[in-house]
């Protein structure tokens, strides 16, 4: 079915997201030793992924600046808050 689609920007993003999901799952499930570093890596990748979904799937990259800033702020602030909780709590 997918072979009928041209590999456009959004399909390329989808391919990246699926690949990142499988790879990070393997890293997450096989983790040994320094779990904090792995945890932070997994958290960072998750937020890269949701930013890609917002920009390319929800078309926020074409949105007026105030809306784009709101979404970028959500991604940034939530990520930083979770990192702080992860490291401090």
């Amino acid at each position, binding site marked *: *079915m997918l072979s009928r*689609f041209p590999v456009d920007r*959004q*399909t390329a993003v*989808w391919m990246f*997201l*699926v690949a990142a*999901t*499988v790879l*990070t*799952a393997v890293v*997450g*499930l096989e*983790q040994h030793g320094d*779990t904090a570093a*792995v*945890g932070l890596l*997994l*958290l960072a*990748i*998750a*937020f890269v*992924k*949701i930013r890609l*979904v*917002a920009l390319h*799937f*929800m*078309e*926020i990259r*074409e*949105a*007026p*600046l105030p*809306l784009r800033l*709101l*979404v970028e702020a*959500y991604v940034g602030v*939530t990520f930083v*808050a*979770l990192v702080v*909780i*992860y490291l*401090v*709590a």
Partner: protein
Amino acid sequence: MSIETAPVDDAPREGTRAAPAPRADGKRIPGEEGLWVFILGDMAVFALFFGTILVTRGEDPAMFASAQHELHPWLGIVNTALLLTGSLFVIHGLRRLGDGTPAASRLFGLTLLTAFGFVAIKATEYTLLVDEGFNGGTNDFFMYYFVFTGIHLAHLVIGAIIVVFLIRTARRPKLTPGQRKFAECGAIYWHMVDLLWLVLFPLLYLIR
């Protein structure tokens, strides 16, 4: 099917009469403004859920890790792939909307299948866990696991109902600007369900 014709000056093009005038900077609000109040509000509530999960982990890392170990991560991974793929079908369906072919409704139909797949896998996960003796009362991890994945599942079911309407809308030979806008809003909602799972999944299944 579609034949490009040069628009005649002063004659409103089909399907654009109710559309707002294009902005000078070429930017446009995906869906509509009111939808984004809801989307960002919902995402903010989920941000609190995300924080709650990590606070619970911080309070008792050993309990969190051992409870997390009982989950079935590969089912969660398949569900992540299903949601992402459903999003891809929505994007392509939206692109084919109103092109005079059944492509859009079929693509939205495929999204609906991914939603059914997600629900079936989630139901399997819940059943496996309960059979293995874990439920919302087992400990804080499982309470939040069932509550937050349950709330997310409710969002997904609403998304699936919206997709049913998208399939019906896509079957119309001609779409009004309002119907097109509805389809765009429905697509954004689906992507939000996808986006929220992309954080919920690693927090519950992977991050120790």
